[in-house]
């Protein structure tokens, strides 16, 4: 199995003398499902932000598909991985769900094709979003906004998914849909990293479980 992320002798801290990770060693496989757990404030979200290129300035080796993360451009990183942020509104940039997914596809550079429109509609249908497509985001509930972000993930099915607390705020039906999507991806050799402080979802599809503890990561 090829690792998508390799951390070796890796250290990171927001402040110079207060390290969140120290001499971290970790390999995340590109085609398996990995779960990382940890207490509040242990650095789970920070790790997600580092992996998606939102945070930089680390020490030690940090590779994305054998390329040094420092040398990769933001665009290169975004072509390989997609992050679902824990702060659910932080994933949305547009005023309506439809507009938000169109931005995912068009990237302010081109117009959506018929194929794009079809893919978008399929994604909305899976999460029962058809009736909210043109409703302003600020009038939607937390769960409905989460469904927009999950639908957006489906447009990025060929990238490695990093999901920060993906099951929070979802009902059992939606949890089951998301779990099945992750399983389907795994069968097609597309990996997912789930970061969560809870494990109340089914873990039968998870290949590896790690726990963040004492500035490092331990295999469970």
């Amino acid at each position, binding site marked *: 199995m090829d690792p998508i992320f390799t951390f070796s002798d890796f250290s990171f801290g927001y402040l110079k003398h207060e390290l969140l990770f120290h001499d971290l060693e970790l390999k995340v496989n590109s085609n398996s499902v990995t779960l990382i757990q940890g207490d509040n404030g242990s650095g789970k979200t920070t790790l997600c932000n580092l992996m998606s290129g939102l945070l930089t300035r680390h020490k030690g080796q940090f590779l994305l598909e054998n390329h040094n993360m420092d040398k990769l451009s933001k665009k290169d990183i975004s072509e390989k991985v997609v992050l679902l942020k824990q702060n659910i509104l*932080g994933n949305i940039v547009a*005023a309506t769900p439809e507009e938000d997914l169109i931005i995912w596809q068009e990237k302010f550079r081109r117009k959506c094709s018929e194929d794009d429109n079809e893919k978008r509609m399929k994604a909305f249908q899976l999460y029962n979003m058809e009736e909210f497509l043109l409703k302003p*985001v600020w009038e939607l509930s937390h769960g409905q906004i989460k469904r927009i972000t999950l639908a957006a993930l489906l447009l990025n099915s060929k990238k490695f998914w990093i999901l920060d607390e993906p099951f929070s705020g979802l009902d059992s039906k939606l949890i089951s849909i998301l779990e099945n999507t992750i399983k389907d991806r795994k069968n097609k050799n597309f990996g997912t990293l789930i970061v969560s402080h809870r494990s109340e979802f089914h873990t039968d599809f998870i290949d590896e479980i790690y726990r963040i503890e004492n500035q490092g990561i331990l295999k469970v």
Partner: protein
Amino acid sequence: MNRLNLRTILILVILVTSLSVIYQNLRIQLILTGFTLFLLFSFRISKHKLHRLGHRLLSLFKLVLTILILQILFRRSGEIIWEYSFLMVTTEGLNYGLIASLRFLIIILVAGLLFDIPYYDYLLAFRSWKFPFEISFLVATIIHFVPIFNTQFKSSMEALQIRGIIMQNLPLLKRPVVYLNLLLPVLARAISEIKFRAISLELRGFRLYKDKTYLHEQKLSRLDLIIQFIALIFFLLLNLIKIIQL
């Protein structure tokens, strides 16, 4: 300096910004910028906050530089220092350019100082000045809103980066469209939150009783009184000199 009362800081800020507007003098602007920096650095003890300020200044440096260049190029009176085709740098242009950019710098520094002060401190300061609570609440809320808006906007920029939309790589004409797309939802969300804030205030009995009580109190120390007194005298003196000169 960290123990300075917010009222003292507000007085100093009002005096510095007023003098910066009144005086069209480069030397005075430099002194005021130096004083603002001193105020800021002595107030912000934590290295983290200093680092954040440095970062903020660096990101706004381009804007300050643009103001400087525009002022230099569009002022054509005074002695010519350098000339090429229709471009001209004059002594007055240079003077005005430096004054305008220093003024802008003072505003950035002062805003950086004020936005980092906790919301509750403003309520206490305004209460001490006997401001009606409705007004102090409004002002404090607006001051509190700016960093929240900033965080939300940054978060939207990150969301764009995750999508592979890198602002620097977009054509110049596309960028305003992108900013408009980001700004509208952030503003709309903020406005829609006001409704819930109003309900929350009513549930807490906002203005139900005439006098509002506060858990903490901010008393002026002797240092505060001395600084306020000296600053006011200094301000009056400078204005008096200015009036005499006229």
